[in-house]
């Protein structure tokens, strides 16, 4: 007999149930905003602390609706975007050369992993302004082609490039990596 896995994705209402915040579909008739009912909110020790007590000690700045003493929490109208995307093919690419107004890349097929590597040239114009700062040799990006269908049913062909983002190399992160490397070196040296 199988049980529901703790790491399954769950919908908003059940998510909030699990967080011990039973958020009913109540709105403030004055402002139309969502209002928390006077029930226990999340926390590992929630059995010993009422919602009001927890709310008082909370550091979050809440907007109080007139006539209500509870914080306002507004859920997004829909949990996910409405536009539909049909991807025909997707690649993970590595920049191999940057030219004057274009760049070359090596492509690994994500849709059909068994396909051989390919080479392609892309124009700078195909890269968003935010991502152009990331464009350099050995930078990784994802390229996909397909169709999008808008809410109104309009179909458009797409070719999208999105660069991979990695955390900045902070001193703390580098120190952590150095320390870990040293530990592994010691471990492997000791085994030989």
């Amino acid at each position, binding site marked *: 007999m199988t049980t529901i896995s*703790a790491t*399954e994705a769950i919908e908003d209402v059940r998510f909030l149930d699990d967080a011990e915040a039973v958020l009913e579909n109540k709105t403030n008739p004055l402002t139309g905003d969502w209002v928390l009912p006077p029930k226990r909110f*999340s926390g*590992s020790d929630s059995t010993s602390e009422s919602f009001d007590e927890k709310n008082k000690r909370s550091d979050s700045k809440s907007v109080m609706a007139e006539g209500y003493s509870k914080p306002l929490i507004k859920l*997004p109208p829909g949990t*996910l975007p409405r536009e539909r*995307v049909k991807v025909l093919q997707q690649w993970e690419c590595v920049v191999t050369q940057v030219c004057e107004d274009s760049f070359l890349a090596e492509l690994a097929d994500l849709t059909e992993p068994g396909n051989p590597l390919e080479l392609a040239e892309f124009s700078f114009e195909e890269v968003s302004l935010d991502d152009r700062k990331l464009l350099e040799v050995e930078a990784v990006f994802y390229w996909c082609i397909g169709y999008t269908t808008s809410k109104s049913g309009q179909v458009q062909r797409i070719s*999208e490039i999105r660069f991979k*983002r990695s955390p900045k190399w902070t001193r703390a992160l580098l120190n952590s990596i150095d320390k870990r490397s040293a530990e592994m070196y010691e*471990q492997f040296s000791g085994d030989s």
Partner: protein
Amino acid sequence: MATATKSDRQLSSIVGIGSFNPAIFHPIWFEKNNLIAPSECETADISIISNEVSVVKFESFLLKSTTDRFSIESDDIRRFQPLCDLVVGTFTILEHTPVVAFGMNNHQEFVFDSFDSWNNFGHNCAPKNLWNLSLLEPGMRKLTIEGRRENSKSQRIQVTVEPSKKLEDNAVQFSLNEHYEMAQLQADETPTALKFVEILQDSWQGFLNYSDEAISSVFKAAEVDKQ
């Protein structure tokens, strides 16, 4: 032969169980750490960010976190790999976050060409001969099969099949959850968050490919042409 056409609706998510600080998951934090683009930070929709719970809708992702659960999901297949990159980047920075378990999820929906095809598929998954004597008009509501994936370090993978909740009639949805318990994977003093990141990086694309293959094999066994 019956036909099942893949719908545009597909969702993937990564869920972590452990000890988290929801207040940190502000769009500005992600942007300052080069994990999202500045434009994505500006357009992020914050439902709530607090010490107990955070819900933030980015252009491509939906992030939800409480003190003991973190999840991030996307229904845009173009963003499935960036989704993994975002989680990897986040917990590389937050390397001391205690992660007790994590799971990878994939959800796909298919529309059958007729009611009879759809019904027959359900009957194939759950034959009614065990139920006909005790129930009138028995029908499969939800079926979960658990097993393990070859070459995976996960403790289990569950595949759930049920009539689609969102699509029109004659549709089914497949939900796959691959679950990892960190206690059974930790062999040294590596922070659990870094171990989580390491496994996620190695397994994510394989899990997504496996999801497609597993569903295809189920349809093939049920003699349904998957399109």
